[in-house]
C-alpha cells in the first residue's frame, strides 16, 4: 500500500538542496570543497546537515573555512568566472588538501558560468580538482551526493588493477544521515568480519587514497533503497566493477544475518565462515536481549505501534528491525528523502517484505507539515512511538507519544560515533527507545 504526496511546497525540511553535497566532500579526509555560490548557502545548508543534525561541527575544513566566492550582485550581473578563478588559485596556496571539488549554487548555474572550462585548466596543470554543477533547484542533496561522486568518477579516477576482496561501500549519506560515520564504521566491521576489505571513502578512516582506489574494488556494495545505485551503475559502466544492491540498512539479527549471507554468497565466501560469524554475533545479541526481555515485556506503558519519519534508508532498516525482531507493529511509514519517482515502486516493494505478512503503508513526502497532519489523523490505541527528526517532538508531545530522533534534522541530540547498524546497533536502538520510555516513568 502506498500514498504519494506530490507536494510542491515544503514545511519542516529534512534535507536540503543539491549544493548540500559539499558535506560529502568534507566527509573525505583532506578533501576540500570550493563553493561558487551566494554568501549564505554554506551557512544555511550546514544548519540542517551539521549544526542542527546531531551537532556535527565544521571538522577539518568545513563551515567558515570552506573557500567560497560569496557571489554578489557584481558576479550575478557580469559573470562569476573571474572571481572563481581567483579563489581556486589562492585555495591551492592557502588550504592544505589532497582533493578539491568545486560545487556551484543557483547564482552560478542560472547565469551560466562556465565552471567546467575553469576547472579543466587547473586539471591540465595536474591539480587534483573536479567540478560539479549543484545549483539548488536541481533537487535534493542526496541527488547532489551522487553528482559529486559522478564528477569524481568522470574527471578524476583512473583505471586500476582489481584487488580481490576490496569492497567499496555506498550507504549512509555523510551528514544527511545523522549517524553516517558510526554507520560506516559498523558496516566496515561487518564486511571485515567476512574476511573482505572495505575501501573506506568517507568518515574517520577515510582518505583520498581510498578515493583513488575506488576502481580497484572487486565489487561495489550499495546498502540503501536507492541512493548510491547511480554511483554503482556508473562505476560498472566505466570500470566494469560488478555491484551488489542490498536495499535495506541491516539493523538487528534477522536483517544483518541475511545481509551477511547475501554478501558472502556474492563475494564467493565459504558459507561456513559466514555462518560462524553470524552465530557468534547472534549469541552476543541474544545474551543481551534475554536480559532486556523482562523489561521489554513487563514495563507498564510499552509502545506497541510505531511511526517512522525518515529517509528511505532508515525508515526501512528501522521498521524491519522493530517488526521482524522486536514484535512491534508498523503504522504509517513516512519517507522523506524525496525519493525519485523511478525508484518509489522498488522502495514500496521492500516495505512489503516483513514478517507475518505485515506490510506497512508507506507515504512519500518531503513536506513535514503534511506528515504532521497525517500523523495527527492516525488513531492509535496504545501510546505510539514516533521515530523521526526533532521536528516531530512537538506532535509527539501533543499526542502523548514516545519520540526518538533518528533522522535529519536532529537538534536534540549530540551524535558522535553512535550507529544503529548491525547487531550492536540494534542493541543501541533498543537502549535508546526503551530509555525514552523509562525516562518517561521517573
Amino acid at each position: 500500500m502506498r500514498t504519494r504526496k506530490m507536494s510542491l511546497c515544503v514545511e519542516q525540511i529534512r534535507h536540503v538542496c543539491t549544493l548540500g553535497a559539499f558535506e560529502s566532500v568534507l566527509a573525505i579526509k583532506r578533501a576540500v570543497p570550493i563553493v561558487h555560490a551566494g554568501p549564505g548557502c554554506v551557512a544555511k545548508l550546514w544548519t540542517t546537515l551539521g549544526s542542527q543534525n546531531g551537532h556535527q561541527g565544521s571538522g577539518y575544513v568545513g563551515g567558515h573555512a570552506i573557500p567560497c566566492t560569496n557571489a554578489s550582485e557584481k558576479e550575478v550581473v557580469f559573470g562569476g568566472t573571474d572571481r572563481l578563478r581567483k579563489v581556486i588559485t589562492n585555495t591551492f596556496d592557502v588550504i592544505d588538501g589532497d582533493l578539491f571539488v568545486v560545487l556551484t549554487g543557483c547564482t552560478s548555474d542560472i547565469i551560466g558560468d562556465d565552471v567546467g572550462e575553469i576547472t579543466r585548466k587547473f586539471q591540465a596543470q595536474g591539480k587534483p580538482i573536479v567540478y560539479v554543477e549543484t545549483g539548488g533547484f536541481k533537487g535534493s542533496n542526496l541527488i547532489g551526493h551522487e553528482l559529486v561522486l559522478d564528477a569524481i568518477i568522470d574527471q578524476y579516477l583512473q583505471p586500476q588493477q582489481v584487488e580481490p576482496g576490496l569492497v567499496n561501500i555506498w550507504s549512509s549519506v555523510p551528514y544527511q544521515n545523522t549517524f553516517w560515520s558510526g554507520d560506516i564504521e559498523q558496516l566496515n566491521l561487518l564486511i571485515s568480519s567476512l574476511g573482505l576489505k572495505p575501501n573506506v571513502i568517507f568518515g574517520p578512516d577515510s582518505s583520498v587514497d581510498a578515493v583513488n582506489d575506488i576502481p580497484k574494488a572487486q565489487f561495489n556494495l550499495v546498502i540503501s533503497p536507492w541512493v548510491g545505485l547511480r554511483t554503482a551503475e556508473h562505476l560498472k559502466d566505466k570500470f566494469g566493477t560488478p555491484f551488489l544492491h542490498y536495499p535495506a540498512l541491516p539493523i538487528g539479527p534477522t536483517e544483518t544475518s541475511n545481509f551477511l549471507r547475501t554478501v558472502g554468497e556474492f563475494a564467493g565466501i565459504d558459507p561456513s565462515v559466514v555462518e560462524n560469524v553470524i552465530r557468534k554475533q547472534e549469541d552476543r545479541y541474544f545474551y543481551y536481549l534475554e536480559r532486556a526481555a523482562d523489561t521489554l515485556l513487563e514495563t507498564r506503558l510499552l509502545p506497541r505501534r510505531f511511526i517512522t519519519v525518515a529517509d528511505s534508508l532508515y525508515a526501512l532498516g528501522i521498521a524491519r528491525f522493530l517488526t521482524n525482531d522486536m514484535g512491534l507493529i508498523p503504522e504509517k511509514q513516512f519517507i522523506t528523502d524525496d525519493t525519485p519517482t523511478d525508484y518509489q515502486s522498488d522502495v514500496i516493494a521492500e516495505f512489503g517484505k516483513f514478517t507475518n505478512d505485515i506490510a506497512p503503508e508507506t507515504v512519500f513526502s518531503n513536506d513535514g507539515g503534511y506528515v504532521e497532519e497525517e500523523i495527527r489523523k492516525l488513531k492509535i490505541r496504545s501510546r505510539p512511538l514516533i521515530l523521526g527528526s526533532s521536528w516531530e517532538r512537538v506532535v509527539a508531545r501533543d499526542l502523548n507519544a514516545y519520540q526518538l530522533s533518528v533522522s535529519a534534522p536532529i537538534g536534540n541530540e549530540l551524535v558522535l560515533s553512535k550507529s544503529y547498524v548491525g547487531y550492536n546497533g540494534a542493541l543501541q536502538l533498543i537502549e535508546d527507545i526503551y530509555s525514552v520510555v523509562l525516562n518517561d516513568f521517573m
Partner: protein
Amino acid sequence: MSINLNLSQVTIREKRLKSIVGYQGTIKDLAEQSQSGCLKNASRGFSQATNCNSGCAQGYLSSITDAAIVNHGPIGCAGDVAGANAGFQWGQRIRDWNQRNVRIINTNMSENAVVFGGDKILKEGILKAYERFNPKAIFVTTSCASGIIGDDIESTIRNVEAEIGIPVVPVFCEGFRSQIWASGFDAAFHAILSRIVKPAEKKRPELVNVINFAGSGRAVITEIFGRLGLVPQFGIPYSNIEEISRWSEAAATISICGTLGSYMGNGLEQNFGVPYVTALQPHGISGFDDWLTKLGETVGKEKEVEEYLAEQKILAAPELEEIKFKLKGKKVVVGMGPSFAHNYIRLLEDLGMEVVWGFSWHYDAKHDHGGCPSCTTELTKKDKDIPVSVSDQQNHEVINVLSKVKPDIFIGRHPGMSVWATKMGIPAIMVSDEYSAFGYQGTIEFGHRIIDALTNNSLAVNLSKRINLPYTEWWLEQDPFEFLKQKNKRKESENKKNVAVR
C-alpha cells in the same frame, strides 16, 4: 539617509550606511575615516563562506507568534529553518510556553520553476501557509534564484492578499544583493514598518520598545524599568502582529544591539514620532550607564536613573574590583558583529584586559540617525589605539591573526567561529545570549565566565595537540591581510606594530 517606507525594498547597508566588510587598521583610523566619509570597502582575492541577509530576515521574523513565512526559493534556502526552530524552541521554553515549531513554508523551487517562472508556486505556497497556520500576516522572503529569474513577487502577493484578506508582505533578501547579512534585519524591519506598524491611536508615556533577540533578560529589565516607572515592550521576536502594530504608541525605542536596532528604531522615530535612544549598548558598566542614562533623558526619568545607577555602583564595586584584579593584563581577541564587537572591546578593556585585536564581521560607517556608531567613537576617546579589522568571518584572516598575536582568550559571538580558536589551544567564549554582560550583575557574571575559561584550558590544549588546521604553512607565514586589497593598506612594519607578538 532617511528611511523611506514607500519603497518596497530596503536600501542595502552598503548604500545606506556606507557599510563595509573589508578593512584593516586601528579603531581610531576606522572612526576617523568613516567620519570624514573616505572609508572604502576593500575586496579580497581569496574568500571563505559567510552568511547572507536572508538568514537574518527569515530567522528574525520566524519568531513572531501569529505570522507565517513563505520562503520563495529552492529547498536549500530554507536550510537555516532548523536553526531558527532551535532558537524558537529555546525562546518558548524560557517563557514557559507550550512549544510549537516555526511556521515557515518553502516553495521548493525546481528547475521547471527556474525556467518557466515561480509565480504559480509562490501563490500556492502563500495559500498553503494561510490554510495551515491561519496566520495574521504572511511574510514572503526571496532567494537568489527568485531574484535572478525575476519573478514578479509584488504582483503575485497583491493578488493573493486580495484573496485572503491578511497582510502578505514581501521581504527582499536575495543573498547576492548585499554582502552584509545584517541587511536582512533591515529587510525584516522594513516589512514590519511599512505594513504592520500602524500610526498610534493613543500614546503610552510609560511604554518603551526594547528591540532584542530571544529576550532572556526580560525579568531584569522589567524590574529596572519598573523602578523608573517604565514598562518595557520586548520584541520583535515572541510578539504578535497586533502588539507590533502598536509599537508606535511607545514613548521611546531602545535596542540591545546597534546593528540590529538601527533601522527599526530610526524608522519608528522618523515615521511614527517615537524617539530612538542611540546610546552605547548596555554591556559592561559604562555601556549600561550610558544606555540607561540616555533612556532616562529621552523619557524624562533622569533623576530616577541617576539614583538607580548610584545604588548599583556601590553594590557591585567589591566584586568588580576582584574581577579586574584577576583579569588584569590578560590578552584577548574579540570577533563579533560590529556593534557587539566594539561594545565588548570597551567592556573587556574596562575589566582590565588588553584587547590585542578586534574583528568585526562588518562595519557601518554610520547608523540610520546619521552619526558614526557611538560604540566606535567611544573607543577613540581612549589613549590607547586598538588594532582592528573588518571581515565577514573570513576564517583565514582570523586564524592567521590568532596564530600571531596568541591571546589568552578569544571571545566571539557567531556560530562556527570560537571553535577555531579552541583548535589552536586558545580557550574561547561564545556570547550567544544578547543579555550576557548586561548591566551590573551581568557584567560580574561575565567576568567570572572569563575567569573560569582561563582557569581550565584543558579542552583547548588537548584539541590543539591532536588537530591539524587546514591552512598551509605558507599561509600562516603571510601577512594576515595578504588578500585584502586595501588602497591605503598599512605597511608591513605598521602591521607588525599592531600585531603585538608576545
